[in-house]
């Protein structure tokens, strides 16, 4: 009796306080302000959804291109396989599962996702997932269904993470937060790949973002769980693994490995192990099963690079034909060694100074290092770099917006192949405009804000030289070059003896941007933090 009475009293007083607060002048203004922020946020989210859906009305990868089709058919095929075969046969080659035709080569979580989608597809139209006979199935209704699955995944996982990140972890006025959110959601690269080309990057990147968000808010165990999910959705998330590991380890060490730190470490390790175990549960009964999955996920036999990727190997290839000079194994070791070498500095820095700011920079550095030097990189992997860059949109608007533009540009040949020229042009132009208007990118490129002071010391520049001006001009030239090359590669036929001229030019220009960014962010991570803003961030 007393307990309920107490509870009632407590409730009443709470309501009373709340109402008093609401009806007071201050409370009214507070409430309207909060409501305004949320209505702006909802407008941003709705626009993000509309743009995604608008892009998804366009063509997709491999549309009407038998016999192999493209990524769209791959995803559909996985639905077919996971629905019709028992779990034990998903990753094995047999009469019902031809691994040479888009065999499953992603970790189990992707497979489960396909399985769920397949169940829904079966309810709507059984023909979509019929074993063997549904191969290469295409119809407007099916396209609508597939596009919807991507959008649903985005709305459930990626978009909420972006919203929360921008509202809670980006600093500044609420208007600045909303502007950041706007640009973050409208980053063209991810939209075009997920909703145009057709993939589910939003899921893995979304989980990774949830991880970052949780770490930023101090919930380390939850963060590591979210990141483990990301890893189990797409093995490419390994690009981000080292910073997560170093940040958490560094934090534990800072807390003292004998006391609270140890407890934290054990908790995180347990969470990660449990998450992995849950994801791999059906494959754990038999070691050969698990081994086969691992073999499928990491295909070493596919060569140093494919197509035209804006990384070191492909760019070097225009000068030296590496693939014919070096043996296959040596290529593997070389790329492995270089990648480790490139990741090491930022990781060590993060290990010794585990701040959130350093963590974000390390995410960029690590993923860029992997993209530039590692083995078997796809052009789409640049999205893994774009995500941490998006996290910095608020702090370093100029550099981030520039990089994001370049990263979208680097995938131009892919978009042209998929017939996504119009959405590419429209979304890129819109993003450029947005970043200039909303983030006022061009106003934020004074030397101090771009952290260029270190360069002055490094390069022994004359103190009067205005580095910021030079950088701004570089930006204009690079935007003009990207726009010009985009137009050229659409309008002109390449000369007959150089059929790959434009893709090679695109990837080389993009590579120069990426290399520049890599060096810049590494220097940034090692430079002192002069401004007051950074001091706050250190706490």
């Amino acid at each position: 009796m007393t307990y309920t009475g107490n509870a009632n009293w407590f409730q009443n007083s709470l309501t009373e306080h709340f109402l008093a607060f609401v009806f007071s002048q201050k409370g009214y203004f507070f409430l309207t302000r909060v409501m305004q922020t949320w209505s702006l946020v909802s407008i941003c989210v709705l626009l993000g959804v509309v743009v995604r859906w608008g892009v998804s009305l366009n063509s997709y990868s491999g549309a009407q291109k038998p016999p192999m089709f493209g990524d769209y058919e791959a995803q559909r095929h996985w639905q077919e396989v996971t629905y019709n075969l028992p779990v034990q046969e998903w990753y094995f080659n047999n009469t019902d599962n031809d691994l040479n035709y888009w065999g499953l080569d992603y970790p189990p979580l992707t497979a489960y996702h396909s399985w769920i989608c397949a169940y829904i597809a079966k309810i709507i139209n059984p023909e979509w997932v019929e074993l063997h006979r549904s191969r290469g199935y295409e119809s407007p209704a099916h396209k609508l269904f597939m596009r919807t699955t991507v959008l649903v995944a985005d709305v459930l996982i990626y978009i909420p993470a972006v919203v929360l990140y921008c509202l809670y972890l980006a600093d500044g006025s609420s208007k600045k937060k909303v502007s950041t959110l706007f640009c973050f959601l409208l980053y063209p690269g991810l939209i075009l790949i997920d909703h145009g080309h057709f993939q589910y990057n939003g899921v893995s990147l979304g989980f990774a973002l949830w991880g970052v968000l949780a770490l930023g808010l101090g919930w380390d165990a939850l963060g590591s769980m979210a990141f483990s999910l990301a890893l189990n959705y797409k093995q490419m998330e390994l690009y981000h693994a080292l910073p997560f590991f170093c940040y958490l380890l560094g934090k534990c060490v800072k807390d003292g490995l004998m006391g609270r730190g140890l407890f934290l470490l054990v908790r995180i390790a347990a969470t990660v192990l449990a998450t992995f175990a849950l994801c791999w549960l059906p494959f754990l009964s038999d070691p050969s099963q698990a081994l086969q999955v691992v073999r499928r996920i990491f295909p070493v036999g596919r060569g140093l690079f494919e197509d035209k990727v804006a990384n070191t190997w492909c760019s070097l290839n225009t000068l030296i034909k590496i693939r014919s000079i070096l043996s296959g194994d040596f290529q593997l070791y070389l790329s492995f060694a270089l990648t480790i070498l490139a990741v090491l500095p930022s990781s060590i820095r993060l290990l010794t100074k585990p701040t959130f700011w350093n963590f974000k920079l390390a995410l960029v550095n690590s993923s860029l290092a992997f993209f530039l030097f590692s083995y078997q990189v796809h052009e789409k992997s640049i999205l893994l770099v774009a995500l941490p860059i998006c996290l910095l949109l608020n702090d370093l608007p100029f550099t981030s917006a520039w990089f994001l533009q370049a990263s979208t540009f680097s995938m131009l040949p892919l978009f042209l192949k998929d017939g996504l020229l119009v959405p590419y042009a429209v979304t890129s132009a819109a993003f450029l405009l947005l970043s200039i208007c909303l983030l006022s990118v061009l106003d934020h490129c004074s030397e101090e804000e771009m952290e260029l002071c270190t360069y002055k010391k490094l390069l022994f520049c004359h103190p009067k030289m205005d580095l910021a001006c030079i950088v701004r001009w570089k930006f204009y030239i690079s935007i003009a070059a990207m726009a010009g090359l985009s137009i050229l590669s659409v309008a002109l036929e390449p000369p007959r003896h150089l059929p790959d001229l434009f893709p090679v030019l695109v990837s080389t220009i993009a590579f120069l941007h990426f290399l520049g960014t890599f060096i810049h962010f590494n220097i940034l991570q090692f430079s002192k933090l002069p401004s007051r803003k950074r001091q706050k961030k250190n706490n």
Partner: protein
Amino acid sequence: NMAVQSDVEPFLHFEVHRNWLAITHSLPVSSWYHENTSEWTLDYPPLFAWFEFGLSKVAQHFDKNMLLVENLNYASPETVMFQRLSVIFTDLVFIFAVRECSRCVQVQKVSRDILDQPSFVLSVLLLWNFGLFVVDHIHFQYNGFLFGFLLLSVAKHLQSEHLQGALLFSILLNLKHIYLYVAPAYGVYLLRDYCFTRDVKDGSIGWRSFSLLRLLVLGGIVVSVFTLSVGPFLVMGQLPQVLSRLFPFKRGLCHAYWAPNIWALYNILDKVLVVLGVRLKLLQEAELPRASMTGGLVQEFQHSVLPSISPATTLFCTLLSILPAVVSIWRRPRGARGFLRCLLLCALGSFMFGWHVHEKAVLLVILPLSILAVESREDAGIFLLLSTTGHYSLFPLLHTPAELLIKVCLMLMFTTFSFTALRRLHRGKGSLLRPLEVFYLLGLVAVAIACEVVFPLSPWKHRLPFLPLLVTSVYCSVGVCYSFLRLYLSLWRSDCKAKQGGVKS
């Protein structure tokens, strides 16, 4: 900021305009209004035909085949691209007009915050207008271009450049004759406010101040524009043919999908009476005319119990409905803003009572009302009510599953913005809408869910395919009628105020 549009799939509706491009490009002027290979004959005034003629000169560089009259339903990717781009480019007129309008907005207090600036809010309300976006860039029409002329002419009147305003409006009339609906407001306003230079002190008309010169200049402008446009056809003796194309009274009282006006309520009342009559055995089912409701065809709709409506009746009702507004600005002119209010009443009155009204015509009210909405509280409330209802009534225009998400998101975006921004502009004095109005708007959500989600899954889908359209138009017509009354009320109030003050603004 109109970036999304070109990603949206093309629709068959643009065949109309492709056909007009072909007609104006490949046929001599004398046969423009006689050509009838396609069922979509040219039924816009001559200046619009010339506009299409100009477009066709650009179009031939995209794809020559779209300019052949026999190529019915031709839609190559280049054609689609050209058509979409032409809408986007001609929208520049609209953007320019919005800029002019937002300059005329009265600012009470200067604020640093961009959301507090009425001119910014107005530009967003106009540029992001859901209805215009849907009708132009998804459904396909050149309304942005036409509304550009209308808003520009309104802006010119607000800036007291009456001659330019009149010139723009007469051009507009010759581009699309639907704007005849608001012509009474223009006529009376120009005559009263421009041709009479002074008022007597108590605000009544000063007959002595009549300026013949001004009337002559005004008349000269209007007549010369009309001569330029209709003249050639008059010389060729084709005027009756042109007019018969422009005013096809053979169509029914209501469009296939009933526009949310008084006739939608009239029709449903008739239907209810029939059902009741049959139930109560007052009527014999066999004797009733076969009223198929409007199941998708443009046809005459016969009323069973209530008297049928003739075009003359609708004309009479329309004139009656706009009469008080016109008389009011004749007796007590209240400057350009009074004129704008009268224009709105004319537009809404003809939407309410007109013959064969399209649901898109509601934009003729919503767009100019935005200007008043950022300036006055009362109008902001009407705007929120009317824009939400009117925009929702456009939903049936987009009916494929792929468009569902787009229309819902765009509508929510626009509505969220207009509510937030207008409430912020007019904060501090209670809410803009009355509780019952809020309740009505929430009902719209229920209607939307029922029509778009529940109904397609229900077994009624095959038996009563027209039910969602019916519910939508009837529910929306209640809101539109109510807004009409509220708009009249606001006119009456400002009338009273003017009487008390005795001085016009």
